[in-house]
């Protein structure tokens, strides 16, 4: 049997991850519910003043998205690591980084994209004006893939370690600062929206190129 082409292999990994996740849909819902709860807690903490909430909305939604993504990083590799799938992927004749990229893409479709979709609803809850809604959605659309990409490095490095969950946040959260700044900044700095979005897109391009590579290196170390 000849090996499938690189594209077929990458697509296979992607489809498999999505199918497995859809069969256990609570995995998809948990980060979403977490996201909603965190955003709901903020008004309870800082008070219901509409003006305060409006100015805080982009930051709150971004930080909540950051935390929700981070919490879901565990399932990016851990199940495949536990049942040996990951070792098979590492042995495949294709570059591991490409296969990792399709896993990351699947992770984003299952975690990041739903967050983006429900974010306008939560923004409304925080009295966020609707004519700027598209900027928020746009920034999250560009930013959440960065969170999945950068997060994959942390997930790969902490694979199979005790206390992996807390550790991954320690490794990954400082690396999330540029995405947070450009993402939330795009919404709050009205005259510089385009600049922020372009920079965020640049970060996304950089992360797409380098993160799968670093994550693959991390996985090889963890599988050693």
């Amino acid at each position, binding site marked *: 049997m000849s090996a499938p082409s690189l594209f077929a292999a990458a697509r296979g990994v992607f489809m498999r991850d999505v199918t497995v996740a859809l069969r256990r849909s609570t995995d998809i819902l948990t980060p979403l519910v977490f996201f909603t709860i965190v955003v709901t807690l903020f008004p309870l903490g800082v008070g219901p003043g509409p003006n305060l909430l409006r100015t805080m909305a982009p930051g709150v939604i971004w930080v909540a998205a950051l935390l929700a993504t981070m919490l879901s990083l565990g399932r990016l590799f851990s199940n495949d690591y536990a049942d040996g799938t990951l070792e098979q992927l590492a042995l495949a004749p294709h570059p591991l980084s490409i296969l990792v990229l399709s896993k990351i893409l699947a992770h984003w479709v299952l975690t990041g994209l739903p967050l983006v979709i429900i974010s306008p609803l939560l923004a409304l809850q925080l009295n966020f004006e609707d004519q700027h809604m598209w900027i928020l959605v746009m920034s999250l659309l560009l930013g959440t893939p960065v969170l999945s990409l950068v997060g994959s490095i942390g997930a790969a490095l902490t694979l199979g370690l005790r206390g992996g969950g807390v550790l991954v946040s*320690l490794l990954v959260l400082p690396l999330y600062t540029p995405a947070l700044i450009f993402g939330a900044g795009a919404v709050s700095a009205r005259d510089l929206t385009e600049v922020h979005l372009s920079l965020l897109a640049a970060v996304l391009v950089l992360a797409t190129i380098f993160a799968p590579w670093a994550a693959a290196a991390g996985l090889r170390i963890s599988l050693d």
Partner: protein
Amino acid sequence: MYKYASPKNFYALAGQLIPWLAGLTVLLLAVGLYLGLFVAPPDYQQGESYRIMFIHVPSAWMSLFVYVVMAAAGAAGLAWHTKIAEVLASACAPVGASFTLITLVTGSLWGKPMWGTWWAWDARLTSELILLFLYIGFMALQASIDEPRRAARAAAVLALVGVVNIPIIHFSVEWWNTLHQPASVSKVGTPSIHPSMLVPLLLMALGFKLYFFTVVLMRMRYQILEREKYSHWVAEVLAAEK
């Protein structure tokens, strides 16, 4: 040269270097502190309180320098599997983290009389704080992996990711800062520095650097002993110590 890549020879060489480096460090720090604290004139704007600069600025320089050394050593360890490079990277982390902490603490002490606040979300302060988080992440990752080789390699990947990110983080924080803080922190203007202040500053910087080399070599020696504890030569060294 290659001879010193072996842990045994490196252990011996480091043992010979440490007293010299330590002596020079003490000398430089003593002269630098004396010139800085007693000889240099008080600043015409900041009075005496600027003297904390002689600690603050060199440790800020070191905090970045050590990270770069750590990442470079990590990369060398990944590429050539040299034990010495791995040991160097892991020995750097706590030293670099303490320089970063010293920078933050002295900066905060300096900020109180100058800016009127302990902490300002100034770009440099913020990126220094994130640098501290990066160091802590590095150490935490290394500490949670028992097998030393795997720990060193995983931490090296993290350090390399960090080194790519530091400029991006710094740039983004600076950008964010200029948007959020229109001149609320009026930094005291930095007039061109007078030699009477520059000389002690450079001496202190050099002293800090030598201190770093001294301490890193000491840490490396202990780590080498720990890693090689089942080998013959370590048994001989330990027997000789007794």
